[in-house]
């Protein structure tokens, strides 16, 4: 759409004319759709369209950002002016600002999509959710819910250094949950997870989930949890399912390796990181089995793109290799401040939000085992699956997670179902205790990662597989 590129050009050129030494502009057009069903009926259908431009301007060593939904030439120039005006105000309390050099990328990219999710009839999508939730209700769920979400995003990015990029990213996913209500508790089972499963794919992702086929089991298990014994308290061997491990990676690795946190830029809100750049390349993060890769090119994963939101081409980079911390998530500015030479992890939620360091796809490489082998080789422990709650400190060290369901593991076999399974620990100690890792990788999508002020919701991907951890404290209760 040349008019969108024209608007971005106008904003950048006007910012430069007013004294910016660097400027970029990102026009985004996004269509969204989500539907929620409860107990066999649709309770919400929301669709949306939003278009606008966000302009960054660097004046001296201070930044300004302004965003507007108006894209006519005069409005675009005004957005450039406002960005410069804000940057000049920032200069009242100045700091360092630099950017590592970048190739002026010119390109086009689109995510793979076999079935356009917005083109699937609403009635078909509604039938899918109402059937699944009706079945859960029939099977005894006190509250049965289902959800799908769709994002169709087009972006046009230009910079004063010559970037001209357009992208088309389609994302979707969904899931179902059954809640059983007891006298003094609730229990939940979900499929494929509480948040659902999401990716940069078309509706084929949702079709493959086959939500209805899992509805009865999910409802049965929610009720069974009410009758199950409590997860015992103490230190034991812990086996995590892949979805829970995906969130463990997200919280205790992904956020910890964000360079803006390491540099203190999120100190007052999201927090900092326990990682010290002086230890990069030397610090033992986890066991030899731990190989974490940052890969924005992972096909179909939720954190995939062609270029990040400051124009760096998507790539793949080690974050942890054989347990040693080797890389960070960086942008051009944070990399310059840290003395690093790579970027590629800057993204914004929408046209109205400032691009900032965000996860892309941060996940594990496969291990040598299978889940069956891990269980078979465990004499005494607990298997936990599907995240229910998550909490971690502001340095990304001290965590506590709750899962939907647990099972005893005795003499190499799964035993009784356990309710309220929780575990807690300290990041590097926990990761160093990982002694078995499955090869059964799934790229789990997290569509609700919060960061930044004003708050931004990010979409991230986390390839993960079941794994075993030793001497973990489980069964924390209030």
């Amino acid at each position, binding site marked *: 759409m040349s008019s969108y590129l024209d608007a971005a050009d106008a904003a950048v050129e006007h910012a430069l004319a007013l004294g910016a030494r660097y400027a970029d502009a990102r026009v985004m057009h996004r269509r969204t759709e989500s539907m929620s069903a409860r107990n066999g009926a649709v309770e919400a259908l929301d669709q949306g369209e939003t278009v606008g431009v966000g302009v960054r301007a660097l004046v001296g060593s201070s930044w300004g950002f302004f965003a507007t939904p108006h894209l006519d030439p005069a409005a675009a120039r005004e957005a450039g002016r406002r960005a410069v005006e804000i940057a000049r105000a920032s200069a009242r309390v100045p700091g360092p600002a630099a950017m590592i050099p970048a190739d002026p990328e010119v390109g086009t990219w689109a995510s793979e999509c076999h079935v356009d999710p917005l083109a699937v009839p609403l009635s078909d999508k509604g039938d899918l959710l109402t059937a699944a939730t009706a079945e859960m209700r029939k099977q005894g769920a006190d509250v049965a819910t289902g959800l799908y979400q769709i994002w169709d995003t087009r972006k046009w990015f230009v910079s004063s250094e010559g970037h001209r990029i357009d992208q088309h990213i389609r994302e979707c996913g969904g899931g179902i949950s059954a809640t059983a209500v007891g006298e003094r508790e609730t229990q939940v089972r979900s499929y494929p997870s509480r948040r659902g499963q999401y990716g940069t794919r078309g509706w084929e992702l949702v079709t493959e989930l086959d939500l209805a086929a899992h509805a009865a089991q999910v409802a049965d298990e929610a009720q069974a949890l009410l009758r199950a014994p409590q997860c015992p308290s103490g230190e034991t061997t812990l086996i995590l399912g892949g979805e829970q491990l995906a969130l463990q990676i997200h919280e205790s690795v992904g956020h910890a390796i964000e360079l803006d946190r390491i540099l*203190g830029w999120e100190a007052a809100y999201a927090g900092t990181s326990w990682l010290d750049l002086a230890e990069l390349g030397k610090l033992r993060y986890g066991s030899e089995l731990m190989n974490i890769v940052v890969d924005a090119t992972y096909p179909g994963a939720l954190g995939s793109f062609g270029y990040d939101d400051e124009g760096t081409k998507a790539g793949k980079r080690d974050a942890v290799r054989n347990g040693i911390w080797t890389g960070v998530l960086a942008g051009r500015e944070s990399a310059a401040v840290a003395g690093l030479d790579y970027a590629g992890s800057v993204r914004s939620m929408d046209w109205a939000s400032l691009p900032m360091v965000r996860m892309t796809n941060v996940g594990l490489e496969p291990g040598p085992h299978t889940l069956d082998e891990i269980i078979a080789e465990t004499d005494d422990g607990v298997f936990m699956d599907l995240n229910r709650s998550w909490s971690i400190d502001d340095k990304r060290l*001290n965590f506590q997670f709750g899962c939907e369901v647990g099972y005893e593991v005795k003499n190499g076999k799964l035993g009784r179902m356990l309710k309220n399974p929780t575990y807690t620990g300290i990041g590097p100690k926990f990761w160093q205790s990982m002694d078995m890792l499955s090869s059964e990788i799934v790229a789990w999508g997290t569509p609700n990662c919060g960061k930044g002020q004003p708050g931004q919701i990010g979409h991230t991907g986390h390839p993960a597989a079941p794994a075993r951890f030793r001497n973990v404290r489980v069964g924390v209760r209030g």
Partner: protein
Amino acid sequence: MSIAEQVLEAARRAAGGSAEVDVNVAREHLALTRFANSYIHQNIAREADTVTLRIHVDGRTAVNSTTVTDDAGLAALVERTVAAARVSPADPGWAGLSGPAELPKLLAEPDPATGEAAPEVRAEQVRAYIEAAGGLTAAGFARNRKVVTTYVNSEGQAASGTVVEAVLDGIAKTPTSDGASRQASRLIADLDGAALGARARAKALASQDPVEIEPGEYEVVLEPTAVSDVLWVLGGYGFNGKAFNEGTTFVRLGEPQFDPAVTLVDDPLSGPAAGAVFDVEGTPRDRLVLVRDGETTAVVHDRRSALEAGVASTGHADAESAVNGAEPINLRLEPSAGAPPAEVDGPAADSAVMALVAGVRRGLLVTDHWYTRCLDPRRLVMTGLTRNGVWLIEDGEITRPVKNLRFTQSYPEALAPGRVLGIGSHAPAFASKYGVQSAMAPALRLAGWNFTGGASG
């Protein structure tokens, strides 16, 4: 004709006379200046008009929104919404539109200087905060926001209103400690960067080189900053009408679930973000008592959950309430009677906090909660951590800083009859970091708080 009226008329024409239609137009100006490592590193402003159209016709409902507000964009909005309403699945929970109703009167008009403050105003507040931090590393944000909302529907309800707010929120850091201070107001001129920076500095200095203590149950004094988390959690999970209908909340109406000292209200007429006297369904919102003298008296509803409960909407619909349930947004825990607060030396926020500390034989003073998440909504068991300063209290004195602790605690059980040993004598105002909620939160002295982990796990 306003955009809202224009869209309403076009939608009624397109959808037919039997259609129920409502339109919400929100015009937002949001500006936020962030600082870290004692300089401004991010500084933004944005403006957007969002038009949301809802059509219910032949038993089916569709909601569509857009930020494209030229004629073509609005026409496309109407066309998309009508088309979606015709083919979407049936909506048996539809609760109809709100009829014409008067809005409650605000206690004060919105301050234009607050909503439209220039970036230089925020920069000067930040500068004052950093300078008062006195050489410690400072980080935080200054924000001002203005939202003008217009609502119209096919039943004849029409409402408009303006909300403004300003916030200054930050920390001061030493190599081993953080200290926090924050303030929200409807008047940007109220925000005192120098006083807030000095408070953060005092807290950071007083919490250097903390020691680790054994987890366990401790008597606590929660400062207002920590109490704001307690209020938002109670509001979001507990007093949520949909959750109440589903039986997933602890709330039992008419029962003495809280200590008699507890009175909790949702009050859109006062507080830092006051002004939202109607919701996205056009239903008026007025002062609502949720807990009176310890007895749970109300939950909040949108029209959908209200219909299910057989009661009237309390005016708490938002864009997500159909799915997540309605939540109170202007919570206030009523403070105890007492003298106006004064600045004090040392780490406590003010003299009202120190008055509670004086009664504690052995316990902890907690500045902030962090990353609180729900383990089970039925008992409202939360886990989270302390942040920005924790101190041991011995014989009524703050004796030494301690390292952060993890807790796993049922919030309503911590406030149950006999468990509230004191409430602070004033309720400072806070704005949520996550959304539009505000809280007015006095300090709390509680008989017990269950700390389940220390800094080392």
